[in-house]
């Protein structure tokens, strides 16, 4: 259907952008609220657990061969049960995509474009996402290569210009919040970007050099997780854990504090640019994966015809998904983690077990013959 491929390096860039996208603004708040000044340690902990997850995902993709999650599920569990599992997997991706879209809409309409209606922000963004998904994974991978340098330069510039305002006292006392609270807070990081990496199982068959792919995934996870840790660390260092927890978009607040030589102000736009770029890639990966998956689910040859109708659905879903930000925050805190664990851990594990059993059966069947 679509034999375009991406290189391991491009895959790594996609992982980095996926991890930073949407988390860069959202993550520091809950981390600081949960583990106070030790929020950044939770981020590190979450990343470390992510390494184990990547091993699991890689193991799955090796076992199911050159197939996407949906193809493999139908292949292993049969037409009906396999489709039920695929349905859950796809619904997870699609809902996640709608939520991510809503994130950017919320941010834009509260911080930058206060008078623009939410749905138009969504429609414009989704149009570009549809363009990206239409052009395919190869183009997405190449664009990631174009943007990643700029994104890293902008982030490093942001960090450097914040250095005069760092206050090391904000980190003290280290480990003061207790190991238990650090561990439980790390679940937030695991829920929001780390477990969501399960959607790469839809793209993994299209990565060219399989031997390097796992390595690329791990490096991507470490760099992405590193950036999340740094962002949390800087938020706490500059704002203190209380202000970080209170702010809806702490890193945006952080950037407003930059003042270089009295004329370079208003650099929060850098954060907005970085965020839009990374969230674009997160959304386009999700959107591509979900439309590809739905096409495979329905046995449609070309996923492209699904892009527009799915987009219309997504605009509506993103608007009715939650009524206000307070609802969203409680949803993320209480519901998202079990939901993500179900789809990002339990279902893939089920798939792995099924695949191994099937393989064993085939082997024993072959040896009997």
């Amino acid at each position: 259907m679509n034999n375009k491929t991406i290189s391991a390096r491009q895959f790594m860039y996609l992982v980095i952008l996926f991890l930073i996208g949407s988390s860069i603004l959202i993550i520091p708040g809950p981390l600081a609220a949960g583990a106070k000044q030790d929020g950044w340690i939770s981020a590190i902990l979450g990343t470390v657990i992510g390494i184990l997850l990547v091993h699991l995902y890689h193991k799955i993709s090796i076992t199911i061969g050159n197939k996407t999650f949906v193809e493999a599920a139908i292949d292993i569990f049969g037409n009906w049960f396999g489709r039920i599992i695929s349905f859950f997997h796809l619904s997870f991706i699609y809902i996640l995509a709608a939520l991510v879209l809503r994130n950017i809409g919320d941010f834009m309409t509260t911080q930058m474009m206060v008078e623009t209606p939410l749905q138009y922000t969504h429609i414009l963004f989704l149009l570009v996402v549809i363009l990206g998904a239409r052009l395919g994974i190869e183009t997405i991978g190449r664009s990631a290569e174009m943007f990643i340098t700029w994104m890293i330069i902008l982030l490093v510039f942001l960090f450097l210009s914040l250095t005069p305002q760092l206050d090391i006292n904000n980190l003290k006392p280290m480990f003061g919040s207790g190991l238990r609270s650090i561990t439980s807070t790390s679940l937030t990081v695991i829920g929001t970007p780390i477990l969501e990496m399960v959607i790469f199982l839809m793209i993994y068959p299209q990565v060219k050099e399989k031997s390097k792919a796992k390595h690329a995934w791990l490096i991507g996870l470490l760099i992405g997780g590193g950036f999340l840790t740094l962002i949390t660390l800087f938020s706490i260092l500059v704002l203190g854990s209380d202000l970080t927890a209170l702010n809806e978009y702490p890193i945006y607040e952080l950037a407003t504090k930059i003042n270089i030589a009295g004329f370079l102000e208003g650099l929060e736009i850098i954060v907005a640019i970085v965020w839009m770029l990374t969230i674009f890639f997160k959304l386009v990966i999700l959107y591509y994966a979900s439309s590809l998956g739905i096409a495979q689910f329905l046995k449609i040859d070309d996923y492209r015809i699904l892009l527009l109708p799915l987009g219309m659905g997504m605009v509506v879903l993103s608007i009715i998904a939650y009524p206000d930000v307070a609802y969203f925050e409680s949803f993320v805190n209480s519901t998202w983690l079990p939901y993500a664990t179900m789809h990002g851990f339990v279902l893939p594990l089920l798939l792995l077990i099924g695949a191994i059993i099937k393989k064993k059966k085939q082997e024993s069947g072959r040896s009997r013959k």
Partner: protein
Amino acid sequence: MRRRKKKTTNNNDNVQLDSRLAKQIDESLEGNLTVIKKTLGDASDLVIRRMTLNSSNKIKGAVLFIDGLVDKTSVQDFILEVMMVEVPPENISLAHVYDEIKDSALPIGEITETNKLDDLLLRLLSGETLVLLDNETRALSASTKGWKDRGVQETTSESVIRGPKESFTETLRTNTALVRRKIKNPNLRIDAKKIGKVTATDVAVLYIEGTADESVVKELHARLDKIDIDGVLESGYIEEFIEDPPYSPFPKVYYTERPDSIAGGLLEGKVAIVTDGTPNVLLVPALFVNFMQSSEDYYQRYDIGTFIRLLRLFSFVIALFMPSLYIAITTFHQEMIPAPLLINLAAQREGVPFPAFVEAVLMEATFEILREAGVRLPKAVGSAVSIVGALVLGESAVQAGLVSPAMVIVVALTAISSFVFPSYNMAIPVRMLRFSLMILAATFGLYGIILGLIALVLHLCSLQSFGVPYMSPFAPLVPKDQKDVLVRFPHWGLLSRPSATAHKNEKRTSGRNQPKEGSK
């Protein structure tokens, strides 16, 4: 349906023409001459010189050429004089006259033999001189091409400070010779083609065998052979036929009138297409970065070459985004501007009746009009246009309160920046996309601009030129090719050719030949 009908009638025309001409040459000389004369409609520039070759045997013959397309002295000295005075010797038999003339008599470099009328006619119309004999079904065609051409002159559209000044001309042969003179290598291939059913334009495909990618050469030949058009008057006709996806404002074929640029391209494994009748030679595959480079980058020292390349990229960004950024920031994001500047801008805009977007479109459109007027006008009037542009539209528009001075600065900077690219055809998409970005900026502010930028990069990344990704070596990233893209390493550091086009033969130099300090 209508289109299909039209096509079939067209084909019929061609079939009729062909049936009259596909014939072999007749035995009777007069019969042949009548057919040729009739086919050309008694053209006034057709010269037919009938003669009797040998007084004893009374062999009749004729020499034909088109006046103005041949070099008259060579026809006179090497064909007419030879045939009428020197040959054939008295005792030769009738049957051997033809061979005698062909093999030993005519002192002309290129002679072809043919027995088809259509071939003969095409040669006649290309400037060759025909020799026909009575009772002979073969005919000779001698290459005597020679017409008034412009001669190799200084380039007008791509001038450099340091580097060769010569430019291509309208004559294909001169152009291929200009390239051959720069690359004295037996592997330089020059394949000939004729394109255009009516014009039968000569086209040459140039590449260095062993360096150029064979699949690109093959693909190019296939695409050239597929061209079905009545006439090719400029290489632009060919460009549009061989371009990859036709709906993209970005150029995917490079053209230049500088022989050194073409030679440089051939050395990088690219393929050039020389079209007769135009000094603009095409080069494929063309990548985005090629349009940002000038051959002078390689002639000046590497440090200034690097600096200028970065400057060009910077101007590309300014030319594309400056007006839309100004619109977005003044309309939506005033908080980004430092307070004193903001007060200044607000004071300037106080009397201006339009929103920033209208103001910008007005000025940009005015500039595009001025620019177009300046291109077409004779030089003497051109200065008048610049006076009108600078004084009347810039100065007075501000005084009349139609636009703010800041907007004039923005538009002027944008305009100057768009002249920085060495390739005129890369400035075209920038000019057009600027307006759509301005619309996005006016409706969605920076949000719109960033989304426009993402869409633009996605589009660029999806393009290909003859199978080579358009944005390479950025995407896909090729680390070792970065030495000659945004920066230019010194020549002793350019160890390999770009792998996107010359992956067959990458080695450029044998190794480290960096000059050593203090060595003698």
